[in-house]
């Protein structure tokens, strides 16, 4: 079980290759300081993002998920971020409706030159996660309410 005092939020960020990933890289090369809680996954475009990725992250116990792409009209593939914007507008509202803390899923537009914005976005996100607390969704979901003979043994689950 997670120890409260040692807990650090774990955030997964899906960054589009052409803008946001470059922007995060710029933050790195400029030696900007920002919290180390983010794990970055590079995707070609924010339009490639599947809501299922976000669901899977949250179910596995990740505390927060961030999707970051190019600014509107600046997408490397012209329209990818338009589709992403529409898709995730619906998805974010759905997640909130189902009872998941809305702070746990966020989106941002970060361009290749906005290293400082990247650092700011991550810093704010980590603060929000710290106040939201650990994602007990996964533990809660594994065994909630199940009678003893239907429970799985969550302490033996390893994240593969």
């Amino acid at each position: 079980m997670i120890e409260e005092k040692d807990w650090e939020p774990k955030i997964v960020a899906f960054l589009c290759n052409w803008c946001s990933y470059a922007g995060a890289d710029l933050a790195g090369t400029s030696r900007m300081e920002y919290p180390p809680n983010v794990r970055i996954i590079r995707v070609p475009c924010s339009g490639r993002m599947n809501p299922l990725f976000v669901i899977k992250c949250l179910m596995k116990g990740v505390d927060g998920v961030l999707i970051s792409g190019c600014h509107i009209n600046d997408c490397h593939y012209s329209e990818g971020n338009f589709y992403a914007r529409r898709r995730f507008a619906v998805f974010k509202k759905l997640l909130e409706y189902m009872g998941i803390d809305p702070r746990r899923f966020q989106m941002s537009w970060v361009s290749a030159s906005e290293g400082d914005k990247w650092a700011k976005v991550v810093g704010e996100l980590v603060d929000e996660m710290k106040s939201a607390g650990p994602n007990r969704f996964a533990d809660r979901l594994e065994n909630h309410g199940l009678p003893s003979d239907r429970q799985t043994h969550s302490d033996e689950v390893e994240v593969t």
Partner: protein
Amino acid sequence: MLKIITKEDLHKILISLLSGFEIIGPRELSHKGIFYEPITDMKSLYWGEGFATEPVKKFFLSPSEYLFKGRYDNGKEVLDDLPLTRNKRIIIGVRPCEAIGLTLLDKVFNADEYKDEFYLNNRERTILVGLSCLKPDKSCFCTSLGGSPESNRGLDVLIFLGGNEFIIEIITETAKEILKNSGRDLSQAETKAWELDRKRRKESLNYRIEVPESLDKIFESEYWEDVSRSCISCGVCTFLCPTCHCFDLVDEKRKKLRCYDGCAFCDFTLEASGVNPRLAKKERYRQRVFHKFDYFKKNFKENLCVGCGRCIRFCPVKINIAEVVDKAPLVKS
């Protein structure tokens, strides 16, 4: 052994048993149905005429359970068994058809060739307290399959409701140990009245079908195409059936999961090569009928159906398997 007991006294006995047993009974959720759930407040027990949506099968053959897990021990692969739950429980409000269903499942999971330890463990730690049906549903047809609303086969105790007093028929030694000092004995007149009531309950079932001895002759018939047209291959009939027991074995997170599966699903017989012997819907529906009313009978001498009617009640398109079997184009003797 027969006893009469009031509802309050029965509740008191159940509450006293809570220390040693988990009590599972039917509870009504408004507009959704009746479900078997662990009960601690006896007042929420449902004693009405409705039937539970899911049969008690799920407490014995679990809808999904992890069988064993794997790990690495110094680079070597090791398989560990997952511990079985041992706490005792009493399931109350079981209908006779569901209990007969369990005796049919025993033939598969408690056979000489193979004894399933998960199923057996659940069977051994459970006491079944049945409830005789007062008013069968229009889709019930248990009497056509050797069952009855007052059958005590497979049960430890069978309760007959009547006003505020219940007549309980105590069948097994285990049940006698627990209940021998409860309630009071029946008088001669009461016993006679009970026997008449039993007979009346059995006869109250009007819906009868004729189950043919064998369906072999019509395996290639066009009939299966006609009756399965509206089937949507959903799996509701399979999952809610007290006797259906097909399962799928899946690897997840280094654990082996066994979960319910059904011959109704399109991919049930999909092989690793990509070939699917039962791709067409009619083949799958035919398989369902044959397994229940032909193959199982050939192997175990009984139909794999108890006539509970759940498949008919909950089928989203109202396919009636009893009608399908009854009206099968066979020359009846």
